[in-house]
């Protein structure tokens, strides 16, 4: 990973990026105005939130939906819209936190 402020001698040539997927280290959660809350007790594990999330911010653990990655969730609300009515396991609320990140 290229260090911030690195000089030209210390970075790979030509803009080559050698750390695949390192965007995951970049926080986009502070873009959020509304935050989804996942209610595990209502979740039917249909994975629709996972497949429709633009930000790959639905966490999956041991083959199950396990919550929201608030470090990256931008709060678009697609997951809550697409969560089946019968489950209603994701709800949107105004994000009251600091504009910083709550993980």
């Amino acid at each position, binding site marked *: 990973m290229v260090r911030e402020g690195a000089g030209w001698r210390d970075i790979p040539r030509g803009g*080559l990026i*050698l750390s695949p997927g390192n965007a995951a280290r970049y926080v986009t959660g502070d873009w959020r105005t509304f935050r989804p809350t996942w209610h595990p007790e209502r979740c039917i594990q249909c994975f629709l939130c996972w497949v429709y999330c633009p930000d790959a911010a639905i966490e999956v653990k041991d083959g199950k939906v396990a919550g929201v990655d608030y470090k990256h969730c931008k709060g678009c609300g697609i997951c809550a819209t697409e969560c089946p009515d019968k489950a209603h396991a994701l709800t949107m609320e105004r994000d009251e936190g600091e504009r910083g990140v709550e993980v």
Partner: protein
Amino acid sequence: MAQTETKAGRFTARGPKGRPAGRVALTGNEAVALAMRQIEPDVVAAYPITPQTDIVQYFSSFVADGRVATEFVTVESEHSAMSATVGAAAAGARAMTATSANGLALMWEVLYIAAGSRLPIVMPVVNRALSAPINIHCDHSDAMGARDSAWIQLWSEDAQEAYDNVIQAVRIAEHPDVHLPVMVCLDGFIISHALMNLEVLPDEVVKDFVGSYRPDSSLLDPERPITVGPLDLYDFYFEHKRQQAEAMRAAAPVIREVAEDYETVSGRRYGDFDAYRLEDAHTAVVVLGSAAGTARFVVDELRRDGRRVGLLKPRVFRPFPGLELADALAGLDAVAVLDRSDSFSTMGGPLFAETRAALYQRAVGRANRKDSGPSSGSGPGNGRPLPITVNFIYGLGGRDIDPGDMRAVFSRLARVVETGDTGDVVNYLGVRE
């Protein structure tokens, strides 16, 4: 394709290892195509354009006859030719293409991307005038238009030099300190279509010389995925451009090293430029490409009459060997720089601008170093004023330049020296007034 078959037959150049395979008569395009066959790039993506077309055709016949393992991509434009070549090079392939004139102009956007992405692509450019008006014949406006694209440029005087340059270009481009694309320029028709007896190397000598390409990263290595061509904003773009400038600087000694190695396998010596009868000359011309042959002929002729004249023919235009070139010219009284393209700056052609800048830099550098020790101002011409420099734009759109024109240039230089009057700095040679 019977004709191509016959010509392809002449490309078989065999000889004992390490020895030149002997003399064969080839056109410039055939010589380049032969070099490409011997290099055997992994990928060639090319599009036909006069006068480069033969190269594509000959190479296609090598592919069709299974003489190369190259994947030949018959793209639908030069833009795609360079784009596919960039893709192939980023995928770790040794990749080549070739073009001329408007084809090079269509590639323009991607030329910068190839260089900025530091991809070691080699591309023969068969020089031809840019439109408009459309013209298929030789001038240097195409390659000169790309002179600031961070491509290394090697220029060729004849088919022999074109052949030798293409082979050397591979090693230069792929050198770890360089990693820049290389353009090998040869004059359209004058070199590309004229038959010449030249010395070619046996296939295995060329293969040995270029070696196998081992890229340090590749799109095709699933174990180590890479991202090529990111969005690079004000926080790092400048650093990447600085690297590029450094790579071009580092190319100068690499080009010399490769030329030395090449001399050991070919017996032919190449420098950054060829200084011909320059040591004791009072006046000289500086000229790129095939016109240097005409200049050489006239220099010999005038020398027989006791005139102290010489020639400087750059082979390497990017990086520009400015200081060395200025050293070589510094002792002269007057120099004419011949440009086969106009920059339309009203200040002369591109070779003239570079030459004058180099002379000025040398003079200023000497002034700045005045009291800095014994090494200051030790070059030829020390203490003498810089040569008077004049520029002749010539040969646009394939207009012939003959010995008479060249004699006129030397006469003008003699007059300039005699009278001390430079006259017009920028002149048009061989145009009807």
